[in-house]
């Protein structure tokens, strides 16, 4: 593996200048060092919450029956 710089690549997303300025004021004196850093943080939080609503059941009814049988056998239920 050769020398590599930080591997995250960035792209540009446009936001209104008014919002940009508002965030800039908001992050003064906080741990956030740039508007981009703040926006990334907030978006990750929002995206994760949105993904939460798209959850799938990870196993079938048949799997569930087998699991319940094991849990009873081991004394968990």
């Amino acid at each position, binding site marked *: *593996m050769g020398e*590599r710089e*930080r*591997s*995250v690549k960035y792209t540009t997303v446009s936001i209104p200048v008014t919002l940009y300025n508002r965030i800039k004021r908001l992050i003064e004196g906080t*741990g956030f060092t740039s508007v981009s850093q703040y926006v990334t*943080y*907030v978006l*990750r*939080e929002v*995206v*994760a919450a949105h*993904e*939460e609503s*798209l*959850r*799938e059941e*990870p*196993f079938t009814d048949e*799997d*569930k029956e087998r*699991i*319940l049988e*094991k*849990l009873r056998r*081991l004394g*968990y*239920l």
Partner: protein
Amino acid sequence: MVSRPHGGRLVYRVAEGHRRERLVRESRDMVRLNIDLERAIDLEDIGFGVFSPLEGFMVQDDYIHVLDDMRLADDTPWTIPVTLDADPDELVDVREGDEIALYYDGRPIAIMSIEEIYGWDKRRHAEKVYKTTDPGHPGVEKTMSMKELLVGGRIELIGQAPNRFEEYTLWPRETRVLFREKGWRTIAAFQTRNVPHLGHEYVQKAALTFTDGLFINPLIGWKKPGDYKDDVIIEAYKTLIKHYYPRDVVVLAALRMNMRYAGPREAVHHAIARKNFGATHFIVGRDHAGVGDYYKPYEAWEIFQEFPDLGITPLFIREAFYCKKCGGMTTEKTCPHTEQDRIRISGTKLRKMLKEGKIPPPFMMRPEIAQTIIKYKNPFT
């Protein structure tokens, strides 16, 4: 509601029935790569979804993102590289795109589709993961002894290394069903590699005051010399639960997962694993997954600030101690008294007493637990 699996989908890469039989047969004609118990344990954790969304050992893109950014290439939080190492002479007949059989102790336990074979810089790995290259750090020592190449690709389990704790082992699919059956909507997970003392019990019960259930999930597998043996930890917890917990609010299950002693990074790794088990909250203790003085006592708390999208809530509960004036276990947050009134529970001191067959004072360790431990001729690894 139990947590959503990390990355959105619970991985299950375990061949069953006829498919398993066929793969076992086919594995005999494949190139064989022998692996040790630690890699066999990683394989289990991948196959049964503890490491969801990982479906195999990391390819280079994920590996580098994890080192540099603590995220997989698709931006999912991930802090500890999960890699398979091999020497070039073991891979002479292997090309990217091949399927190989991974053997542990003479038995095929997984089929791996080779996606990538790549070199790595052990020193850089150690600096990033452990924040030190000191060979005295057990994780660094292990890293430096690993082989020259890394092999990435999806795996499918066709067997398992023998597990002495099978009756205490539950996998994420199973705990998810169990928590639902119990009607728990909020579950606090407690990670441990120690026997419980009063401080641990305090922290667990503090979490349990506002969650429906407590998931005690001790790690079994490789630990550094001087740590408690796996069966001692399990027996000590069984004793604690029997005497001091209502039965319907606690689940005890062992997890075979390798300790890395990577402090803050490993704390996040432990949280992700428990999220896959369905836990909604994760207790992050003092010097979580730390060793020696390599990490600050509460450094593991700080790292969680970088992951607003982790999907499991960390519970930062300060170290509990006995206060003579309060007359019980308390923390710096809840006790107004001075250090002279406080008795800190030292793991080292407890180990020394137990090694000498002495029962620690009851404000440090429940006598029933101490009795359980000293029944063992040598309770330490």
